[in-house]
């Protein structure tokens, strides 16, 4: 663990951290956003050349950058799991302001590369704390994401770490250069802001401590307790908002710094800043959620305890806050007794990841673990044993199985554990569907009606079963997907009528009108021809001409013949002729 002191964490004169440059990598930055990610690949697995070249591609970086947008405090740390599965190593830093900086090293959470390290630069005395927390967190994540990995393989980590540090050695002078560039902004203003932030953090700590002491007394009635909680929540929210706004003032500075940092080609600069307690807060939150996903309750508690032991200033308040939240969860939602279940919260990327199971060897992703097990057979005989192929059984522990409930990561959502009337989600599938339905774009459009949109494919498919089939409409405005239901409705209610869709009526009307117009037009034409000639008095002799080839219907021979009834036909005004035109046998 000491290596971090020597090689990884470099401090500059001002107490900030040097940017850590990697051998290869990619820097995604978005100038118009409040934060950006630093992504760099670590080539510390030299023995597996197949994967060495697989770095994060630019489009992945784009995606990552997009997600980082918004700049709210809760999104300071992002875990770009969805995009970095195939990387050997990855480091991500999210920067908010010049003072808020953290660097998170994420390694692929597989069995083969368990050397996850999470580093955040901060005050020298906090470094051990941080190191501890980061390694613990990576361990937890291993536990979570790859269920089979139950133990942290320390030995393997030990083996791979030297390589890691050697690479860092190589890149040391480069990072120094980058750090030089980053020094252009005014450190005093930053320090000032940081002082304010520190003050705020203390405020939060005080508030939470007061609750803690209240809780220990156990004398409070549930109502009072809830009221108290509400008060604390409001206080917390106020303070956090202040912190964020203060941090925000530092933003232009860090932007400048970043742009200058990027200017050096072929280098990825991590920018070291003076640490802030806020980072810790976020870090912990992150860790918390990581832990809660898969880790055992006891581990989680241990971790929290350990963290608070190391850092009795920044960590405790948060952990207690979470405790409070957990307690609150039990109150609402389903009728589970208070605290009888644990709340887990997945991160956005995890929820949206197309695959949840990954091959430790080749990194291929799968939606189901069964598919992964099938896939694993191709990697060697050891995966073909019945035990390897069997469905991993739930860990049998001496403790009774804890009921797990899930929280939506979206702040402000009723399904988020911080919501006042929190209602937990029952399964991971619920989380996925809920998150997509409520907080994602509806990208699936029904191809039939072109109006309905869905964010979950299954919803679209369900809709498509009914869409396009006739909408059975009643005059009262109710629609039915089935005709018999409509007729049942009409039979039941007096005065309700089946309603025809308007376009149907219109098209029918248009058609009819067209036809009748046509008929009328033709008739008029003909009537004109007839009446034009028919009144001329001529005699029979002309009729003979009908046989001659006078062409088609020209001044028509037959027309000159006065039929008895034709006059009546044209002008049925005189009553005796019109009379003769009525039928008398009916």
């Amino acid at each position, binding site marked *: 663990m000491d290596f971090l002191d020597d090689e990884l964490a470099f401090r500059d004169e001002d107490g900030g951290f040097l940017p850590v440059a990697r051998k290869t990598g990619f820097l995604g930055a978005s100038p118009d956003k409040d934060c950006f990610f630093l992504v760099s690949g670590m080539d510390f697995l030299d023995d597996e050349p197949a994967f060495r070249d697989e770095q994060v591609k630019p489009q992945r970086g784009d995606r990552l950058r997009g997600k980082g947008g918004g700049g709210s405090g809760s999104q300071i740390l992002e875990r770009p799991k969805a995009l970095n599965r195939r990387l050997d190593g990855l480091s991500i830093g999210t920067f908010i302001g010049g003072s808020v900086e953290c660097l998170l090293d994420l390694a692929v959470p597989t069995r083969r590369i368990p050397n996850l390290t999470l580093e955040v630069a901060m005050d020298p005395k906090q470094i051990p704390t941080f190191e501890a927390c980061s390694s613990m967190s990576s361990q937890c994540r291993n536990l979570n994401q790859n269920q089979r990995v139950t133990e942290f393989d320390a030995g393997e980590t030990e083996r791979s770490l030297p390589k890691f540090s050697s690479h860092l050695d190589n890149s040391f002078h480069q990072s120094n250069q980058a750090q030089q560039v980053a020094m252009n902004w005014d450190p005093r203003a930053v320090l000032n802001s940081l002082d304010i932030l520190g003050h705020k953090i203390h405020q939060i700590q005080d508030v939470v401590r007061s609750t803690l002491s209240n809780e220990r007394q156990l004398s409070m009635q549930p109502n009072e307790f809830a009221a108290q909680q509400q008060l604390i929540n409001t206080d917390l929210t106020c303070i956090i908002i202040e912190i964020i706004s203060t941090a925000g003032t530092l933003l232009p500075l860090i932007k400048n710094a970043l742009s200058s940092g990027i200017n050096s080609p072929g280098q990825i600069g991590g920018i070291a800043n003076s640490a802030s307690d806020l980072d810790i807060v976020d870090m912990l939150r992150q860790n918390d959620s990581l832990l809660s996903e898969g880790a055992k309750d006891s581990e989680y508690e241990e971790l929290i305890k350990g963290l608070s032991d190391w850092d009795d200033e920044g960590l405790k308040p948060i952990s207690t806050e979470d405790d409070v939240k957990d307690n609150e969860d039990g109150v609402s939602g389903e009728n589970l007794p208070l605290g009888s279940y644990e709340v887990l919260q997945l991160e956005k990327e995890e929820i949206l990841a197309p695959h949840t199971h990954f091959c430790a060897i080749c990194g291929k992703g799968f939606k189901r673990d069964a598919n992964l097990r099938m896939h694993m057979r191709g990697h060697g005989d050891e995966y073909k044993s019945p035990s390897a192929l069997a469905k991993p059984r739930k860990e049998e522990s001496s403790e009774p199985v804890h009921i797990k409930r899930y929280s939506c990561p979206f702040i402000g959502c009723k399904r988020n554990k911080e919501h006042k009337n929190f209602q937990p989600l029952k399964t991971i599938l619920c989380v996925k569907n809920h998150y997509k339905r409520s907080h994602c774009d509806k990208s699936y459009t029904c191809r039939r009606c072109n109006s309905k949109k869905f964010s979950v494919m299954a919803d679209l498919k369900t809709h498509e079963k009914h869409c396009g089939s006739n909408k*059975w409409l009643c005059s009262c405005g109710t629609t039915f997907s089935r*005709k*018999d239901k409509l*007729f049942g409705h*009409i*039979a039941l209610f007096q*005065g*309700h*009528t*089946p309603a*025809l869709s308007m376009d*149907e*009526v219109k098209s*029918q*009307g248009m*058609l*009819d*009108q067209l*036809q*009748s117009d*046509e*008929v*009328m037009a*033709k*008739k008029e*034409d*003909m009537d004109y021809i*007839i009446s034009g000639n028919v009144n001329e008095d001529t005699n*029979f002799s002309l*009729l003979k001409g*009908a*046989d001659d080839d*006078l062409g*088609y*219907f020209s001044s*028509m*021979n*037959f*027309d000159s*013949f006065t*039929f*008895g*009834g*034709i006059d*009546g*036909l044209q002008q*049925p*005004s005189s*009553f*005796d002729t*019109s*009379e*003769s*035109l*009525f*039928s*008398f*046998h*009916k």
Partner: protein
Amino acid sequence: MTKSRDLCRRIDRSDGFATLTLDLFSGSPNPNPCSYSRSAKRVRVSCASPAAEENRSSLFDSLSEEVLFLILDRLDSDPLDKKSFSLVCRSFYAAESRHRRALTPLRSGLLPAALARYPSVSRLDLSLCPSVTDAALASVGGALRSSLRSIDLSRSRGFSYAGIESVAVNCAALVEINLSNATDLSDAAAAAIGRARNLEKLWLARCKMVTDMGIGCIAVGCQKLRLLCLKWCLGISDLGVGLVAVKCKQLRSLDLSFVPITEKCLPAVLQLPHLEDLALVGCLGIDDEGLMSVKQESKSLQVLDMSNCQHVNHAGFSSLLSKTPGLRQISLAYCCKVTHSLASSLQKIYNLQSIKLDGCEVTTSGMKTMANSCRTLGELSLSKCSGVTDEGLSFIVTKHKGLVKLDATCCRNITDLSLASITSSCTSLTNLSMESCNLVSREGFRLIGQRCHLLEELDLTDNDLDDEGLRAISGCHNLSVLKIGICLKISDEGLIHVAKGCPNLQELDLYRSVGITDIGVMAIARGCPLLQIINLSYCTEVTDYSLRSLSKCSNLNTLEIRGCQVSSSGLAIIAVGCRKLTKLDIKKCYFVDDAGMLLLARFSQNLRQINLSYCSVTDVGLLALASVSCLQNMTILHSGGLTANGLAAVLVACGGLTKVKLHSSFKPLVPKPILEHVEARGCVFQWRDKPFQVELEPSEVWKQQSQEMHV
């Protein structure tokens, strides 16, 4: 005023009059009768005053409208009388205008004038107008706002839902609409009908585009419906019919023939409290299992027609018949075999009076059971049934002495034995059809003439009938319809007997009874003055003399003289004498030429249908015929003198044509715009490509051929 009331009383008392003379000023020395005698019935109005012309009209005015209406009420039988009446003077004309209730215009172009003249028409029959536009219907709706009760559009086209809507909305008193054959109308039109709230009778036969949605609109809108005909409405299913049954509780008569329904709607239909008449002809969706699953009873049902329900067997029928104890008439034509089990299901129906089993396979045991099951059968039809035997038929007729109508057409196995039992037990028989019962002999016919004195209709077509038999039959003095076609043995002698014995004869069919000559026809014409329909086709001995005698039968409306040796002069005499002639078939009358047509056109203004094939008629004759404004149906094949131009002229000139049968060689010759125009007016062309066939084969040969075809 007293005079007027007295007049009313006198008119009221008189029960139909041949001549009514209104002598307004009796006692005046010099009566100046003003009479019109264009019809048999005569209205003579005597205006006694020798006064000046302008004075006379005021005298007629003194007759109150009440009196005139009473007179008009008695003139209903013959439309020509009304015309005469209206031509008397202005007041009579006005009275007739106000009195007329029914109007049947020949074409829609006359509608505006007719509507202006007859403001109180309640029944508008547009079945002779092939093309009725929305505008015409709108004018009807506007003119007959309160009076119109019934409108018939069954033969018309060219209108849309908008026209129907204007009638349905404006005419609040409308109770009847016939929209049959409006194959291009869809649900929108049905929705428009639904706005006629007082509708009681609705015919929608062959409205194939109307769906459940449309019929649903009608069911909800027209809840007073008593009669609904949905025959051939292929778009309607159980749902629509079910909704009708739920909403229209007043339904008395429901025709669901050929509608794709299943048994699912039957419970709702049978639940209708007043349903009396139900037709389920050709409902192939109904089967045995379905009918057996129907548990609903209908006490009110009286008439059930389930002909052509080919998927129903005796089990289904038995199940249904047990639920309908009030039946009076049942038709199971072209259904299943009539066996003991089916016939025994009739047992529960106490009042059954009429059974139609046309085209069914019948067993003797079935007939016996039927005879035992039914109580008072009045009408029995076994037309084209196979398996009818003397034994079965005799058993039935001896059990049911009240039989009035018996149809045994094509029951080829029955003999004199059956006739003996029929005539001995069913003395009140009025209708007897036994076409093609070849085994019946002279003795059988003798029995008919001897015992069935009430017989009114007798069909002996294609029987072994001779003059002796005919002499016996002439004993049925009430006979009004006699069909003795294809009886090759009969001659003038037999016809003379008929002429003497049957003065009420109205219809006589002598098709291919080649033994007939002018003498027989003359005797008939003299002895049967009420004759309306006569068929003398292929009686090759018939000449102009027959026509001359037939011209005395002023009621004659249908004359078929195919292949007779008649000429234009004979036709002219008919035209002058028989003013009511509506159907004329002179196919293969080679001597009929333009002269005949000219006179026909001049006098037979009521002609509707004519067949001129093989005649020597040219363009001149045809054009003359075009002046017959009623003409609707023409068949002109192989008329030598006809040219395309002349034909085109005729087609344009005959405004009322609905159907024209022509040789296909004319099709390319007649200008296409003219054809299109005529079609647009509502005429249908049938192009035939029959070979020219001059020779008439002898009737014996023809019969041989037809029998060979039969076997």
